Structures are given as structure tokens and as C-alpha cells.
């Protein structure tokens, strides 16, 4: 298992994230805010609901959505965790999925902290 970072600095590949939005930092911050404030709370709630109900499809779909945004906005470590969770959901086997979901939550927190630091300058 790969090492998780402790701070926020390695949670995001900023160069890659900027390439996705044509180098526009203002746009990047805007869409990251949309992810953190609108998409992610809904997707995390669905993920938890899927885990509580042992519903692998719901888990896979929720992880898929989180993965897509993290991949697009440079969240490389969170992306890897979301990908594993999505694969579990698609395979129908949720053994260890709760632990992975906790890790994903922690990775998204680091992702959010990174962009909060960027915004603070």
C-alpha cells in the first residue's frame, strides 16, 4: 500500500490541474469550490448510503464521480483511492470498502486544504 501524505502539499499536482483548465487559476479555484461545496457532499452521502446498504453499484457510482473530479483537478492521491473504491463497487465486493472510504475522505480533506492554502496566497 502506498504511503499517504501527511500535509496538503503533495495532495495536488497543480501543474496538471492548471493544464486541465487552460492555465486559468481563477477558473481552477472556481471549479474546485463547486466540487467541494456541491458535488462532493452529495457524492459522499451516496457513498455512505451505499456502504450502509451494502449496495456495490451505488458505491461504485459515487466513487466514480469523485474520481472524475479529482483526476481533472490534480488530486492525484485521492484519485488513486477513489479508483480502488470504484473498482470494488464494480466488482461487487465491498470487503475493506469502509476503510477505503475513510481514506478517501482524508485525501479529499488534504485536497481541500491545498486549495485553501493557494487561495490564502
Amino acid at each position, binding site marked *: 500500500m502506498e504511503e499517504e501524505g501527511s500535509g496538503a502539499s503533495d495532495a495536488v499536482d497543480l501543474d496538471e490541474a492548471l493544464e486541465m483548465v487552460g492555465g486559468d487559476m481563477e477558473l481552477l479555484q472556481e471549479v474546485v469550490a463547486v466540487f467541494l461545496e*456541491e458535488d462532493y457532499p452529495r457524492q459522499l452521502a451516496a457513498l455512505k448510503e451505499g456502504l450502509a446498504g451494502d449496495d456495490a453499484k451505488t458505491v461504485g457510482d459515487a466513487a466514480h464521480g469523485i474520481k472524475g473530479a479529482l483526476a481533472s483537478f490534480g488530486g492525484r492521491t485521492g484519485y488513486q483511492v477513489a479508483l480502488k473504491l470504484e473498482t470494488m463497487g464494480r466488482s461487487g465486493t465491498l470487503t475493506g470498502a469502509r476503510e477505503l472510504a475513510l481514506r478517501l475522505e482524508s485525501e479529499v480533506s488534504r485536497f481541500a486544504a491545498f486549495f485553501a492554502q493557494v487561495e490564502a496566497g
Partner: protein
Amino acid sequence: MSAKRILIVDDNRSLVTAAQRILQKAGFEAMTACDGSEGLTKARAEKPDLVILDIVMPGLDGYDVCRALHKDPATADIPVLMLTVKGQANSPSGAREKIDGFDAGAVDFVSKPVKAKELVDRVNALLWLA
């Protein structure tokens, strides 16, 4: 000449917002829809020049929307670019998804995450071919 009109359909609001802003900066008129049903309604009402469509969405997925667009004579000629994480050329599931997408009526695929330049270039190429 008026701006070409693009409809982007994706249930991730952050991704749909990013694509909308990128296409607007490139001179397109970009509209958005956040699920398949809304996408179908907007496509029928607005008759865009191109639809960019995510595959995995709750309710009507990208294949359903694409099939519905191509069954309706009013929208059958609108080219559809499918936008998917899974459509990686080197993955077996991606290859299958592409075949399913082409069967549903898509004209091309682009894999997420998509860089701004690739998105704009792909849209320009499809509009030029249309």
C-alpha cells in the same frame, strides 16, 4: 457569424462548469445540463450544434440519451461527443464502451480528464466535419 452552440451533459457540476468556461473562452456558446433527462430536454429545445455527453449518470445514462437523440428526427443530426473516464483506448472495458457508444450514435470519444486544449480542438474538429 454567430457562435456555435454546445450542450454539455454531465452530473458532475464542477466538470460541467469547467468545460462550459473553457468552451466559452474559446468563443462557443456553451449550455449545460446536469443529468441525462435534463440534457435530452435541452437538446430538443435548443438544437445545439454539438452535444458533449458523459456516459455514467444517474437515471438516463449517456447511451440512453444518445439513442433518444438519434431516434428523434428533430435531433438525429446533432453530433454527439462522448466524455468518459472509462473510455481509455488501452482498456478492454473502454473499448467495449466505445463500441456501445458508436452503436448508440456517438461520433467520437474523449477520455476524462481532458485537457482544455484537447477539448477545444476536438470540438472544433467535429464541428468542421459536421
